[in-house]
């Protein structure tokens, strides 16, 4: 009778829990496999995307490194003193030096002379990228003798060949190779004066560096260990500043190169975030359904005396196991995809993506998979505590009790915190992470609300008068044990991710392509005198080149603004005009219309002036701010001695990004025609060869005209941009495909939801067609509604991303959205039908026996 005393403190038998978890998982492995596969796809997507992301980031960073060719460059136009030299010699692990200056190079064979930029190099620079030369070895070997590398266009211009000599100062150098591209070449100087590299040991003998010579001193550094070069730069900056020197790192160069790098990294963050959520959708929907199915078993166990904590632990152990297996498999699959894809598409990719195993991605993927599994298992599992063992006698779910459960909210909070935390890993910004998570939360709620509404509405409208198949199909949406909410949320979220990625990708690629030169101007001719203008235009056309822009430029200054002069400004500090407005020398043009890079913000554009009245001018937005100018304000311009009273007729916004002439002040026609002016002409040269030939004829006919060939500079930048643009497209395409796979997987796990009913219908004699129709109807509504909602959310999401994250103009295309809508809807139906196909091909009882 002693056994009446019950040991309420019975210890939990951990090995037994594991045994139960294991036993419970054995039965119906194919079903378990389906769930695990959803996790596998989710995590594979995540790992592959993360891996690509990390690799691509490194690739682009490497490419960016070739912009300066070293980790750190320091330059100035004065020789360094001993103290500074000591500091400069202490930096980095590998050092190179360069002296560069303008000089006249002489090509003896063709007897030609031209302004060039001499770069005397000592050391192994460039550390990133190479001096791309023809022949290839010349980039390395020229330093060994009295040899030079000569810019390609220059070679063409003087019809020089490798092996010829070029005279630099007092010294003849043998041309070792043609210089096609060099890192750190994006300076303007290279555009005006083509580059000639010589070894530094011969610099002295050229006799070019003397007192009074204008020489630029550059120091290049490579750091072997991963030190924070930017930090070093900042540290030595005050010292450099004092010596009139400045530094550049890969990071500062990236910042200066503009927004593409920023856009790319923001886009990759977005992709990372989407991958995270794809992982979540894949894992969560699988786990949620899986655990829900276990409720009955848990009730029985409780009946047999299993404590709720024990039941909870059994399934927690199982979920962790499933999570680990799924995540590890997913990580392996993801890594495999990451390795195989570039090989498979080798011929299609315009650049190589490096494929290194990213342990960071794998680690995050596995951790994420397990954590998501647990968190989303917790939601149904915590209700285990509330599952009355009475459920064994009678199914009586008190749902309302679950909702009020504070633990449930704790789990929601945990999920939220977790998503924010992992988003933070991707975005590196707390505010951003919170906003992104909030956005997803809103999307989630919209989708849930949509599902709920759908259920309400169908319940209200389904009428007995409908045909049975329609009634049944619709009724499936709201009847007990429906999958409406989970499917709408997972399909909707996946569609939203896919659509948003596509939209943002399109916007960004557009943006990047705008920045690439394409057929834009890459050659600028300036200092064309009025008398030469017609001739130069004619010459350009004769060479078969387009005249993309041709503008007169008149130099002038502002004398007075509303009667106030610079002198007044010095006396009266209350005048809200910046000093620079009066000292600036304005390059002004006159024309009768706005250009494509201009937008009228205020006032009225007047293209033609009435000589008897004040001159209506158009002022650029920033100038209007600096000069505190409003429409109607009076300005007196001083056009090289002649005072011209004008007023602000309009204020323009100017896109300074285009390779074209833009102006702070534009005059109307009819005023400045007689003023001293020079002209600028812009054209596009398709190749070095054309460029060389064109330059030759222009210089021969108009020796005073100066030419800037931006081809080389633009080609370096273009290459980078096209890489970035490809990376963006590749990553989005890949993520979209993974998104679809995850979507398929999450719809696939609904396979068992409807099986019992289908079998029942089958048993009652329903035909194949009837069951297909019912299933198709249900899935079509689920698919189309969630796709539609997802796409609408994507429209909004893209708007916010474009406006606040990328800061680019928002525009979306309806057509791709429509296509996506159809694809997702049809895909859902197809998977739904595939899910029920098994039911139709086997005897009903067999299915019940194996799957019930």
């Amino acid at each position: 009778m002693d056994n009446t005393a019950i040991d309420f403190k019975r210890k939990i038998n951990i090995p037994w829990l594991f045994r139960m978890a294991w036993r419970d998982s054995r039965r119906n492995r194919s079903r378990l496999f389906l769930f695990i596969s959803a996790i596998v796809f989710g995590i594979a997507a995540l790992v592959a995307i993360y891996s690509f992301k990390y690799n691509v980031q490194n690739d682009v960073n490497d490419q960016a490194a070739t912009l300066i060719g070293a980790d750190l460059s320091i330059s100035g136009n004065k020789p360094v003193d001993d103290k500074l030299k000591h500091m400069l010699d202490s930096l980095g692990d590998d050092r190179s030096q360069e002296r560069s200056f303008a000089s006249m190079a002489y090509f003896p064979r063709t007897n030609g002379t031209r302004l060039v930029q001499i770069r005397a190099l000592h050391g192994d620079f460039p550390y990133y990228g190479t001096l791309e030369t023809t022949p290839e070895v010349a980039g390395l070997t020229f330093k060994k003798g009295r040899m030079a590398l000569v810019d390609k266009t220059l070679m063409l211009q003087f019809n020089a060949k490798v092996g010829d000599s070029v005279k630099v100062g007092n010294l003849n150098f043998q041309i070792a190779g043609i210089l096609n591209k060099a890192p750190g070449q994006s300076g303007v100087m290279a555009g005006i004066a083509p580059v000639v590299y010589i070894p530094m040991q011969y610099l002295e003998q050229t006799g070019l560096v003397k007192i009074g010579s204008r020489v630029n001193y550059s120091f290049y550094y490579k750091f072997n260990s991963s030190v924070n070069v930017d930090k070093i730069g900042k540290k030595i900056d005050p010292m450099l500043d004092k010596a009139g020197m400045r530094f550049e790192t890969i990071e500062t160069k990236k910042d200066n190169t503009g927004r593409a790098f920023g856009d790319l990294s923001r886009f990759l963050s977005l992709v990372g975030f989407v991958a995270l959520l794809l992982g979540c959708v894949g894992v969560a929907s699988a786990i949620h359904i899986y655990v829900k199915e276990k409720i009955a078993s848990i009730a029985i166990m409780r009946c047999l005396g299993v404590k709720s904590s024990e039941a909870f632990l059994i399934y927690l152990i199982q979920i962790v196991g499933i999570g680990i297996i799924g995540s590890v498999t997913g990580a392996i699959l993801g890594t495999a995809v990451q390795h195989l894809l570039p090989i498979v598409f080798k011929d299609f990719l315009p650049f190589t993506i490096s494929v290194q195993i990213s342990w960071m991605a794998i680690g995050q993927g596995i951790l994420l998979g397990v954590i998501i599994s647990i968190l989303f298992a917790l939601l149904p599992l915590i209700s285990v505590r509330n599952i009355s063992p009475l459920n064994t006698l009678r199914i009586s779910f008190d749902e309302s009790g679950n909702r009020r459960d504070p633990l449930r909210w704790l789990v929601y909070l945990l999920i939220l915190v977790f998503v924010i935390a992992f988003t933070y890993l991707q975005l590196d910004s707390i505010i951003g992470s919170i906003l992104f998570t909030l956005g997803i939360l809103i999307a989630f709620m919209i989708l849930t609300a949509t599902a709920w509404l759908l259920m309400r509405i169908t319940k209200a409208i389904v009428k007995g008068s409908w045909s049975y198949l329609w009634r049944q199909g619709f009724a499936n949406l709201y009847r007990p044990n429906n999958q409406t909410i989970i499917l709408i949320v997972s399909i909707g979220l996946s569609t939203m991710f896919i659509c948003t990625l596509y939209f943002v990708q399109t916007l960004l690629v557009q943006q990047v392509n705008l920045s690439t030169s394409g057929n834009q101007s890459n050659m600028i001719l300036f200092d064309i005198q009025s008398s030469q203008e017609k001739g130069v235009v004619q010459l350009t056309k004769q060479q078969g080149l387009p005249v993309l822009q041709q503008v007169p430029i008149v130099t002038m200054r502002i004398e007075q603004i509303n009667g106030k002069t610079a002198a007044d400004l010095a006396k009266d500090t209350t005048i809200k005009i910046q000093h620079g407005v009066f000292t600036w020398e304005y390059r002004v043009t006159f024309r009768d219309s706005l250009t494509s890079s201009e937008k009228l913000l205020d006032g009225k554009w007047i293209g033609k002036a009435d000589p008897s009245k004040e001159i209506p001018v158009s002022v650029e937005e920033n100038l209007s701010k600096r000069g505190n100018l409003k429409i109607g304000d009076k300005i007196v311009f001083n056009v090289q001695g002649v005072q011209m009273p004008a007023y602000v007729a309009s204020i323009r916004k100017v896109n300074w990004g285009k390779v074209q002439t833009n102006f702070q002040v534009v005059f109307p026609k009819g005023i400045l025609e007689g003023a001293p002016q020079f002209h600028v002409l812009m054209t596009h040269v398709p190749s070095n060869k054309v460029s060389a030939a064109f330059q030759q004829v222009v210089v021969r006919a108009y020796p005073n005209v100066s030419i800037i060939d931006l081809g080389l500079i633009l080609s370096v930048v273009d290459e980078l941009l096209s890489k970035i643009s490809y990376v963006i497209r590749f990553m989005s395409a890949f993520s979209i495909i993974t998104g679809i796979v995850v979507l398929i997987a999450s719809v696939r796990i609904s396979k068992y939801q409807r099986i019992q009913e289908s079998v029942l219908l089958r048993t009652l004699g329903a035909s194949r067609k009837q069951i297909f129709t019912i299933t198709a109807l249900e899935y079509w509504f689920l698919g189309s509604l969630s796709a539609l909602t997802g796409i609408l959310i994507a429209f909004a999401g893209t708007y916010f991303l474009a406006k606040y994250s990328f800061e680019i103009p928002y525009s979306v295309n309806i057509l791709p959205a429509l296509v996506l809508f159809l694809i997702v809807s049809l895909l859902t139906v197809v998977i739904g039908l595939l899910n029920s196909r098994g039911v139709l091909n086997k005897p009903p009882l067999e299915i019940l026996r194996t799957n019930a």
Partner: protein
Amino acid sequence: MNKVTLSGILLAALTMAGCGDGAKSSNNDQAQAATENVKTDSASKKIVLFFGDSLTAGYGLDDPADAFPGVISRRVDSLKLPYKVINAGLSGETTAGGNGRIDWLLKQKVDVFVLELGANDGLRGIPVSETAKNLQSIVDKVKAKYPDAKLVLLGMQVPPNMGADYTAKFKNVFPHLAKKNNMALVPFLLQGVGGVPSLNQGDGIHPTAQGAKIVANNVWAILKDELK
């Protein structure tokens, strides 16, 4: 992204176009003075016109009046000489540009014409013959309009890095031209200033206010005789 770069490049390029340096400031006074002159045209005073580039304009100086024409102007005033100095310098001006612009300036009367151009040609490696041709053309135009005007030529040199050959040819343009046109010549405008870091701005080309005083002395040594 690279928008910034490109516009940066373009700006820089046009700046180059602007002259050895920038389109930035220039001489306020030059044009201003010219303007005043057009308006008031004080009959009592004769006009000294400094026609040049950024060196005349006073590029980069806080007060363009600190450029060497300004220094000379103050000296003229303190000596109570009956001259008014007009600064017609324009940053970035080449000899070709000057040749195009000169007519505009010759609308006003000129008694002493001081020509300071060529530096930008030299820095851009424009053929020396072209520079000489343009300068000659400018002188011809002045002579044609105001045959009585006294002419002063300010000699320029390019830094040694341009190469001995070019440097020598360039340097010779000025004495040759002066002799041919019977002009007074300042052999080298930047004598004692060029190549001395402390007297030049950060760019190593444009004199500081201190440097401009020395430049003004160089000019004054020759100019003073023309103002007698």
